[in-house]
């Protein structure tokens, strides 16, 4: 996969590092499809669109802010204990999300259960701080965190839309498909999520393989 990600995106003019950083996270280096990271929560909370949107916002926030703060502190973090320092920084930002959710959206917070807290151990957040935040200036790190978070978020949203539409016949809780539609309840349950993500990865990987052949 190295040759794919090393090539700069065609639409960006060379030298614009910020734009390239952003496009990389959303497209060619997409954390879910290409790196297969952080799929725990991808699968667990995507059975309704509303929960997914909240979760995505929390994740984008946590990734961007942790990447930003790690980058600010990068000169003072000793290399030997950097993992635990990064984890603690991430934990602080996730706690902020958790408290905000409990205060303003108590119902969603209850439905998401432990998965908000589990953003801490989401490999994407950790991976970005480790791979990008530790080596780059704060502004660029913030952008990279945002892009990785958004790259993750839109995949989550695709999965959530398909699962809610086929599994419950609705979107955001509003019934879309008529009464003729028989709910595929398997899509609300665990196996559906596995199958759907596998198919999505298949499509994306197939496209990458075709492009390589050209």
């Amino acid at each position, binding site marked *: 996969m190295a040759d794919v990600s090393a090539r700069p995106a065609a639409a960006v003019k060379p030298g614009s590092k910020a734009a390239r950083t952003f496009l990389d996270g959303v497209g060619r280096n997409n954390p879910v499809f290409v790196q*297969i*990271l*952080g*799929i*725990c*929560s*991808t*699968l*667990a909370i995507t059975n309704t669109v509303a929960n997914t949107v909240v979760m995505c916002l929390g994740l984008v926030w946590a990734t961007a802010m942790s990447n930003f703060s790690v980058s600010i502190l990068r000169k003072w973090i000793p290399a030997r204990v950097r*993992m*635990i320092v990064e*984890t*603690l920084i991430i*934990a*602080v930002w*996730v*706690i902020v999300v*958790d*408290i905000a959710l409990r205060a303003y959206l108590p119902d969603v917070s209850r439905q998401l*259960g*432990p998965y908000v*807290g*589990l953003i*801490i*151990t*989401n*490999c994407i957040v*950790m991976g970005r701080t480790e791979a990008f935040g530790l080596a780059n200036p704060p502004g660029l790190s913030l952008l990279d965190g945002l892009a990785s978070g958004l790259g993750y978020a839109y995949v989550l949203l695709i999965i959530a839309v398909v699962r809610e539409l086929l599994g419950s016949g609705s979107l955001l809780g509003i019934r879309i498909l008529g009464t003729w539609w028989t709910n595929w309840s*398997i899509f609300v*349950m*665990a*196996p*559906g*999520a*596995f*199958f759907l*993500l*596998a198919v999505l*990865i*298949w*499509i994306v*990987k*197939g496209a990458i*393989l075709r492009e390589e052949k050209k």
Partner: protein
Amino acid sequence: MTDWSSIGPLAVFIGAIFTNNILLTNFLGMCSFLAISREVKSSVGLGAAVVFVMGMTNALNWPIHYYILVPLNLTYLGYIVYIVVIAASVQLVEMVVERVSEPLYRALGIFLPLITVNCAVFGAVLFMFIRRYSFIASFAYGLGAGIGWALAIIAMAGMRQKIAKAKIPRGLEGPGIALITAGIMALAFLGFSGMIPAQ
């Protein structure tokens, strides 16, 4: 909502292994599941280490939460405390195993540091507080969830060794086929639901 706190420890234990498998129904610990589950031998090692650490972190975090964080009104610091406890107990397990049993250390050694970032361990801790388990039930849940996770990853490794020899579409190779296999396993595990009456 199910009243999780009224379920007995034995039912919690069995339920954590089969009906509420932490990997196949809660999707926790997927990253290492996909990365490690290529060989049966290393899966057994990692599985054993996870059972060990999960039982221990649940048993440690329970009293810390109820006897230190709740009386001091510090529950909002919970996540930080649990993570530190997990990291510390993994370190401790590593040192103890090294002293006590050299062969076990050599078998588990490389997997122990990986466990700190395994979301299944952290997930089990969060679930036991959300479901308000008693201390005994929490410990049983930790052990059961660990065993369930180990069971899933070992079974998966066995299947992936066979799949490696099969001919599959190129786009599906690697994570794709692993996810489909996991989906079929999750379907099979759905058959266990109803085994524990309270759910």
